């Protein structure tokens, strides 16, 4: 199948409407869950759902656009982290593609992989653009690590991974559970979903 045909197949109309809804899920749930004040954001739940149903490229685009759109309508600072959201989608999609989202415990492993992958991008952005701080409580840890002689880079590694680990594992589990619970008639419209549902 040629690239153009593959692209058309991967980005069918229903995939597009899924992605649009997923972008909204990311933004709305990110807002709602932040009110619960847990170490969980759920602002990439839509991205991971797209990863499971439509593959890594659709998910990467979903993540990217989520942050760009959020930057456009509310907080331009979020646009700086668009590459991170892209990596989340890519990593989740690749995990699904290679069979790492079939069982619940695999979803947990995928969550860890996603965390590590996103850190590779998030840490340089944090360090070079934002001087390593987030404006949140995690900065206490960064400060402590700096004070004990770490360089900025290593100090930030701990906070970024720590911040994201629980959230990404919960997100991966939740997405897995939801896709497993979707009616067959719906998932049949997404060829790539078979990597998870079968």
């Amino acid at each position, binding site marked *: 199948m040629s690239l153009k045909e593959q692209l058309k197949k991967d980005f069918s109309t*229903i995939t597009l409407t899924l992605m*649009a809804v997923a972008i909204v899920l990311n933004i709305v749930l990110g807002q709602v869950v932040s009110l619960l004040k847990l170490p969980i954001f759920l602002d990439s739940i839509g991205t991971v759902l797209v990863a499971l149903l439509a593959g890594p490229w659709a998910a990467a685009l979903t993540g990217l656009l989520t942050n760009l759109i959020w930057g456009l309508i509310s907080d331009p600072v979020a646009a700086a982290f668009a590459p991170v959201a892209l990596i989340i989608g890519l990593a989740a999609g690749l995990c699904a593609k290679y069979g790492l989202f079939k069982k619940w415990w695999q979803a947990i492993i995928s969550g860890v992989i996603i965390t590590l992958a996103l850190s590779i991008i998030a840490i340089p952005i944090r360090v070079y653009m934002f001087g390593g701080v987030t404006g949140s409580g995690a900065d206490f840890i960064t400060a402590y690590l700096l004070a004990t002689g770490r360089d900025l880079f290593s100090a930030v590694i701990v906070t970024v991974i720590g911040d994201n680990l629980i959230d990404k594992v919960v997100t991966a589990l939740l997405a897995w559970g939801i896709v497993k619970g979707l009616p*067959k*008639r719906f998932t*049949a*419209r997404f060829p790539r979903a078979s990597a998870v549902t079968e």
Partner: protein
Amino acid sequence: MAAIDISGLTYTYPGSLVPALRNISFAVEPGQLVAVVGANGAGKSSLCLALAGLIPALYHGQIQGSVTLNGMDTRLHSPGEFAGRVGLVLQNPTNQLSGMRYTVYEEVAFGLENIGIPRQEMPPRIEHALALVGLTDLRDRSPYTLSGGQQQRLALASILAMEPPILILDEPTAMLDPQGSQNLFEIVQKLVHTGTTVIIAGHQLEWISRYADRVIALAQGEVILDDTPAKVMASPLLTQSGIGWLRYTLAAHQAIARGLWPASRPLPVTVEQAGEGFRQTNQRIEGQEQTDADPD
């Protein structure tokens, strides 16, 4: 040539063991208004999707038989090719908004842009469609500030601007209040008078009895009845398959056993027919009382 020609259509969704549609065959002439009735799960929505050319193209699955829309076989053409040739209106008004346009006017233009209508032809089409559904005054409003009924009319206008000769409506009034439903039916009637072939699926039995040229009843994916409203709406098969009769049809049926409905008279399928029949009974009774009261 028939506008719609279905021949031996049997369709099974992927992953399903039971066909959703079984051996369906009928033809619809241009300009007819056909109603499709059936209990939930009988296959009305699947039939609508097949009539809009979306099954099997989007859903894959197993298909036997054919659906031909104004000469185009739905197995051989993509949904994009049917845009503007067949229109489909669904139940949920808000889901049918494109989400890409900020005014009613531009929302109607969306479909025209997609099928490549030249810019200068757009305004007359849009104005005409808006006038047909009665939304001309709301042309500059955001689609998302409209009521459910208004949004449904907007969805209809957006399809009508594309001027499809065939229009399918799948439970279009399911999420509307009585006034909204009434408005929608009036618009559909206008359309049929201008020559559009209309298929409407749903539970609005009263309206169907009154205005449909023909009623097709589905049960478990099969056609069990295909005839005029007078014949279909009074058929016993309707109650057996879970669709049910209108109240006055039922009342008249029960009245026969008590001699209160003339047995030779066909069962009523509209309130006027019921009125006529019971009035006849009333006159007979009054005549009887007259005779009884008059010993001569």
